[in-house]
């Protein structure tokens, strides 16, 4: 009996010592830790529409649709699980994970991001080569790496299949296969 009393006294002391621990949130703002993965934010000026995020996203909420001269990149963030895969794979650093965790809304439209990017189509067959921005980026990197110019690099307005055909038809580039 005495032991039980001591035990209850100890339990009381634990409670008294802790005091009130409840945070003031939501009446006071709550800042998450630095590095928190909140709602993804996409910078439409940086996105090159390459589609890396769309193939990495485990929730499959990023959609790429080509129509005419434009590619529409859309994020249905109502389904987002905040894993950060899109940020991790983005070569243009267009995606950042914000500190925003209060995403409750009456309309899922509020959680949709949609961007239209200009497309480059193959001059020979009309198939999609990529977005203008992705092509520009390739040119920039190739110019930096080779020291040439966009004109000397060439074939930037050809799709992959047509590039292959062109390469096979160019004697200087065709590789002779011998044993």
């Amino acid at each position, binding site marked *: *009996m005495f*032991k*039980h009393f*001591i*035990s*209850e006294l*100890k*339990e009381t002391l*634990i*409670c008294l010592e*802790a005091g009130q*621990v409840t945070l003031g949130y939501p009446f006071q703002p709550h800042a*998450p*830790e*630095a*590095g*928190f*993965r909140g709602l993804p934010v996409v910078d439409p000026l940086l996105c090159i529409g390459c589609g890396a995020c769309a*193939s*990495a*996203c*485990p*929730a*499959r909420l990023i959609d790429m649709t080509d129509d005419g001269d434009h590619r529409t990149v859309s994020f249905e963030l109502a389904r987002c*699980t*905040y*894993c*950060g*895969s899109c940020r*991790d794979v983005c070569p243009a650093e267009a995606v950042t*994970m914000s500190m925003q965790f209060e995403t409750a809304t*009456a309309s899922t439209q509020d959680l949709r991001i949609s961007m239209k990017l200009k497309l480059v189509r193959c001059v020979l067959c009309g198939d999609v080569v990529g977005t203008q921005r992705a092509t520009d980026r390739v040119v920039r990197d190739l110019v930096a790496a080779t020291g040439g110019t966009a004109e000397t690099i060439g074939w930037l307005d050809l799709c992959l299949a047509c590039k292959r055909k062109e390469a096979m038809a160019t004697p200087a580039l065709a590789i002779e296969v011998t044993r």
Partner: protein
Amino acid sequence: MLSEEIGQGMSDVSHEPPVTGHSDSRCILSSVHPEDLPRAVREALDTLGARYIVSVGTDRREVAGFFEISHIFGLDCRKAFLVLRSEIDPAEPVIPSITPDIPGAAWAEREIRDMIGVVPIGHPDPRRLVLPDDWPEGVYPLRKDFAFDERPPSVPHSRPPLSVPPQGSSLLPIGPFFPTLEEPVFLNLFVQGEHIIGVDYRGFYNHRGVEKLADAVLTYRQVPFLAERICGICGFVHSASYCQAIEAAAGISIPPRARYLRTILLELERLHSHLLWIGLACHFIGFDTLFMQAWRIREPVMWLTEYLTGNRKTYGMNQIGGVTRDIPSDALDRIPPVLDKIAYETGRVVDAIVGDSSLRLRLQGTGILTPDDARAFCVIGPTARGSGVDIDARRDHPYAAYGELEFEVCVEDGCDNWARAMVRIRELPEAIKIIRQALAGLPDGPIMAEVHEIPSGRVGLAVVEAPRGEVVHYVLTGRGQRPERWRVRAPSYNNLQGVPAMLRDMTIADAPITVGSIDPCFSCTERVAVIDSRAGTMRIYRQSELRAGKG
């Protein structure tokens, strides 16, 4: 060689010499004719001292022309696994049941019947287990010719019958929404007066089709994020276990730093999970003061993981080959003070409650699970260790950095709710000890190994000691960018099968804490089937309708 040694033990029954699991020498695959299966199982149990883990059914008709049923065993003292694989003719999809020899295999065999359509002959309780109550007979959702988004027509009144109550007993239903756990489970207690004399379990209401998604839709590198969401408390164990299974199948060895980081996060998860359980257990018996205090002590762990990984619970760091992000550079300064505080505070709480006689009266002598029952139902984790069964995947099948760290496996022999509570309470300082060692020995270097294409047709098996017990992920690699079969065995899958034995002869008042004493996770257990049972009639109410008071 381990495989040769095992081969001698199994030579009578295996029609081909056993082989090791391709890249993983600790996983021994042995082909067994279905008719020899019961003999092979007894051989494994008696000669090799094998412990049954789980059974997996795979529809391999497209690839190889048969159904494959694999019974997986742990050879714990040899740090190895034994997989008995049987090929089942699709024209006659039956297999001798192993449940008469291993009571703990009951659910896995019923699940194979539900999902693949291979019927275990001689099963003592062949009722439907996993599929919804209105699912048509003869439709098997894990067969490859069943599309992941297919919705068969609803068949009313196909609910499995209740098992017959013993003579002279009355029925006391608890559920289908468990009142204290706030989770969907239906326990029918057969009672005489206030004494429980039998239990019938109906669960699997929380179907999410996780395994089907992985072999039909997702890619290898997307699955870890889905795996992490299998459990709402200990998700990291699932993503770690999945990644380990793929790494074992493909022969990837991950960098030392990644192994240590996984260990640190796994133990932080154990800390917060056990503290959560202590709070819940107290809540079950009406001791809400301690419920509040345990959760208060837990909260700093959640803040710490938010700081380390970017989120309180879904760390999102496991990937095949290692971890995707490193912890912040000042983590080594920030983790130890949190550990010190938790160690001090849990010490004080434990000191206070061990003398609490009302707590002891509620926990001691209730929910008895004898060591024999614990072995028969193949229970694991604190549930097994509370009944004196000394198993712990961290020591028996070392993974991550556990092989290089020192820790004690906490075993109690009280066999009651108190013993299971004490195991968890004693594991708290052990977890802190492991994290401290891992921080002290944290190697520098890369956190991700180079991962090439994952070869097809390989078996990967990985276990992780989750807070609730051993989590098992089995992977059979596929020809595309996704597994041919991914099987998740959560610890509650086995532990729940031991609950009827624990409840027998108890009073009704002890039922919630006894069910709670295994720290059940129904959502983990019920990862398999495809469609909500109410899918046919489900509708979403618009805000305006709700405002108008419709529905």
